[in-house]
């Protein structure tokens, strides 16, 4: 593409002296929340370290993970994969009608030979495309004597995100007899009586969708990878794994849209001043290239679209929240709608109290807000003034 080099250069100018931050499945998954935020799109495309940026401008986000959760997660994955995935094979046999032989297990993980990510990816690519579902292995799926299925552990996939190659390592990929590849995701949150924490399942679904997409790109065919991923979790309160299918079609659509948007970042960049930079690096003497004020000012030049949901997904959320204070959207989309969709709290109250004149579009909202204010005051008049409210006037 003609613009590609130019865009690259532009993004690298924004990032400055720092190396681009590498994406992983989690950060790619996070791209799907709040897709309308230009600030986030630009920062992600440029590979700026948002966590450090938030810290520098004085709004650190606490996105830590408890050591207990990490330990448990690793232990569960190890257990499920023990003895060449013996336990997992049993589960997949039932769930996918996968007729796996012990020999079908292939570990594509790092073997300690110190080979780079590239080499591992090439090896994984070779191995996966040679499997019957891959582009080179047409075979005859129903025939006798074909490899019926296979498990690939630690395959290293690659996905282009905003012009950068991102390496991804799904927990496991399974090939189903006569069918397609299935991404297998091992998570340590429990499925109790067939139900799991909805938020965690949603997160796992998006993350798995990232792997599905990467695998599809690797194999070059969409139908080679099923949109149904397999989620393996502990059952009830035990360590016994249970496998369920998870449809990630919706997540795939959002993800593809969002990735495509990142590559079309030019439109967003064109609207930004040419000298925009968010350099978190230091010069030779160890002093930061950009002072806090400069960073804050630069951030302010890229429009954000803050919503309360950002607090649980984006490292910069506290900064944006502060910036958005006084805006109706900061109170939640529902509140904004109820307030007639007006931009700021001051404006909404102005219309409600008749101190601001509505324009034509606002006439209806304004009438509703005036009624609300009148009715609220009337209803409140029936009760004693609260101390806090009184103090504030």
């Amino acid at each position: 593409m003609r613009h590609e080099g130019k865009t690259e250069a532009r993004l690298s100018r924004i990032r400055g002296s720092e190396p681009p931050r590498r994406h992983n499945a989690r950060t790619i998954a996070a791209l799907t929340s709040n897709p309308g935020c230009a600030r986030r799109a630009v920062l992600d495309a440029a590979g700026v370290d948002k966590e450090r940026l938030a810290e520098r401008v004085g709004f650190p986000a606490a996105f830590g993970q408890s050591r207990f959760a990490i330990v448990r997660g690793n232990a569960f994955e190890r257990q499920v994969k023990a003895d060449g995935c013996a336990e997992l094979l049993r589960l997949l046999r039932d769930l996918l009608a996968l007729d796996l032989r012990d020999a079908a297990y292939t570990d594509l993980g790092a073997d300690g030979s110190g080979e780079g990510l590239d080499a591992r990816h090439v090896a994984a690519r070779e191995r996966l495309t040679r499997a019957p579902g891959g582009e080179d292995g047409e075979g005859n799926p129903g025939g006798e004597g074909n490899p019926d299925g296979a498990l690939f552990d630690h395959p290293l996939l690659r996905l282009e995100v905003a012009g950068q190659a991102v390496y991804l390592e799904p927990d496991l990929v399974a090939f189903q007899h006569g069918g397609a590849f299935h991404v297998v995701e091992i998570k340590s949150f429990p499925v109790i009586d067939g139900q799991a924490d909805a938020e965690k399942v949603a997160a796992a679904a998006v993350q798995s969708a990232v792997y599905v997409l990467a695998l599809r790109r690797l194999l070059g065919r969409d139908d080679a990878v099923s949109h149904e991923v397999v989620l393996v979790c502990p059952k009830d309160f035990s360590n016994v794994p249970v496998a369920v299918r998870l449809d990630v079609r919706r997540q795939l659509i959002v993800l593809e849209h969002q990735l495509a948007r990142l590559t079309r970042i030019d439109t967003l960049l064109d609207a930004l001043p040419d000298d925009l930079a968010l350099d978190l690096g230091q010069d030779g003497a160890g002093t930061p290239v950009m002072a806090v004020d400069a960073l804050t000012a630069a951030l302010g030049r890229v429009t954000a679209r803050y919503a309360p949901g950002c607090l649980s997904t984006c490292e910069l959320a506290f900064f944006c929240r502060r910036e958005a204070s006084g805006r109706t959207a900061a109170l939640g989309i529902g509140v904004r709608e109820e307030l007639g969709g007006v931009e700021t709290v001051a404006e909404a109250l102005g219309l409600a109290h008749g101190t601001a004149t509505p324009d034509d579009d606002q006439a209806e909202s304004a009438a509703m807000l005036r009624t609300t204010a009148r009715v609220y005051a009337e209803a409140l008049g029936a009760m004693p003034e609260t101390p806090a409210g009184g103090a504030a006037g």
Partner: protein
Amino acid sequence: MSVIGAYARALAVRTGFAQPVASVRHIHLAEAPLVLVPLRMAGEANAPLAAMAGTDELSGTLLVVPQPRDRDLRFAFAGLLGDLLLGYVERCAAAGSEPVKPPRTPRQPAGRPLPDSLLSGSPSSSPGGAGGAAVAAGPEGTAGAADGDLRADEDALAAAEATGPERFLDAPQVLVPNRAGVEFARLFGRSTRFRSTLGEYAVPAGVPLLGRWLTFLAQRAEHPGSSALVAMTEALTLHWATGQSALEDANLAALMAWIDPPDGLSGPEAARLAEDPRTWPPAGPTTDPQFDNRVLAPAIAAYDEAIALLREQAGLAGAPDPLLADPDVIDSRFRAADLGAARVWPGAPDAPVQSWLRARDEVERAVRGQIEPTWRLMWRAVRRLRELPDAASVPRRWEQDRTRFTSYYAYLRDEDGGLPQARRDGAVAAARRLAVLERELAAYEADQAFDDPLVLANQRVTGDAFVGTVVAAERDRRIANERGTLVTRPLVEVVTVDPVRLPIGTKVCSPARVGQTGVIMSLEPAADGLLVSLELSGGMGRAKVPPPGSVPDMDEVISYTSVLPDGAFSAALPAPEDTPWTHGGPPTPYEPTDGDAEETWA
């Protein structure tokens, strides 16, 4: 988000303080509720780390599991928490009982009577299956119970029937910090109610009972209007709107910061401080990851080491394992001399015992620092809520909680009863449960608007209700009904400036005159608003000319709403035994299996 709620949030942003969205308290608040602050270990399936519980701020009991991955310690914890909760349940049951009037008798609870329509429309007149009619319940209680959510509840009804028509005067009320706390109770109930006190995996006696009661409470918590198990954040946001989002309101400390900020601070300032986990530890059940990594993990590791050392020494000395499921270790009130280890192994060398106790105390100290701020916050919130007067319909809804408590209490004591609640609802039970929840929600919302002008305000904005002044009243109007008999149907005209959006013929009711319904006859623009004329019926006695005061008078300010408690009436479901084959036929009763009791809890 209601429009009044949104406007109140906007006002809160401007003033810097939470704004009221209710003028009365819509939930019941016991004189001494059981406050429960649970903590669990991150990553594990609802493994308890600690709980602080009690009915008095100054005498809360702290239970800390020094190694939450240890199965025996978990059940020891469940046993102690069980003792605590069961003690509370027994105190509620011992507070006395009252005779229950037979169903179909309209009651006149404090505040206002039920509209006739609710009584006749409610399934209490035809309780499905389970023979619920004779159960210890007023019409409301029967309605809820007859459509029981789980098999065990239907059994509970049968059991209650046998115990006689009595209802406890008190019922347990458990307050937890947030929605996740309710979920903790549900899951902890689920993980303990099937356990057996006999056999290979025997647990302390209180454990399965704790499970049943926690499950009972968690199920009640799903019922709109129930105050049996309440998430404090939800109780507070029902009454106040803050200048932050609903998502941020889920943080109890930040929410209270807006409602009751410390002196000299505004809501937003206090809320920002409250969001810092170092100043205000999260209200749980999940702990702050930084606390986990920096404080808790090292403390638990030290405990593990001390235990290993103690066991090694005991092994060398030929003594039995000094830690065989000793529950005392997790009760912070017990000191060294009380502990079982000292009993099991009297001659234990001092050094390893002391280092083990120090390690235990260290975990406890760390956890106490995380749980106590929330404990105090809970009681502050209780006091703040108590400042609001009870809404008129609170006693009636609490009566329903008491009814369910009474029947479940009886069921657990019944010879044939006491089975744990099933893991999942069957299709029939689920359908019934859903129907009940929908009806209760509609009734609860209507009740709130009836009880509280601030809630009614929402309906006024949306045009479903209006407040106006009576400008004309024809008290002695008599018309012929469809049978040709003359009936008294007074006509009143109300002028309102509210944006009424009700079609002619709509049935409305006034909170000031429950039992009297009006039908909108006409709506005409008037000089200063809208002129609504209403034809009234009911609530005015049998005299040809209604006595003065029974019908709105000239110049009276009156409110009318079209949202009535019986609005969500739906067709009755068939009795369980009449379930058609299309829906799987009559459900088979739930029987717990031995497998349930042996379920591993890793």
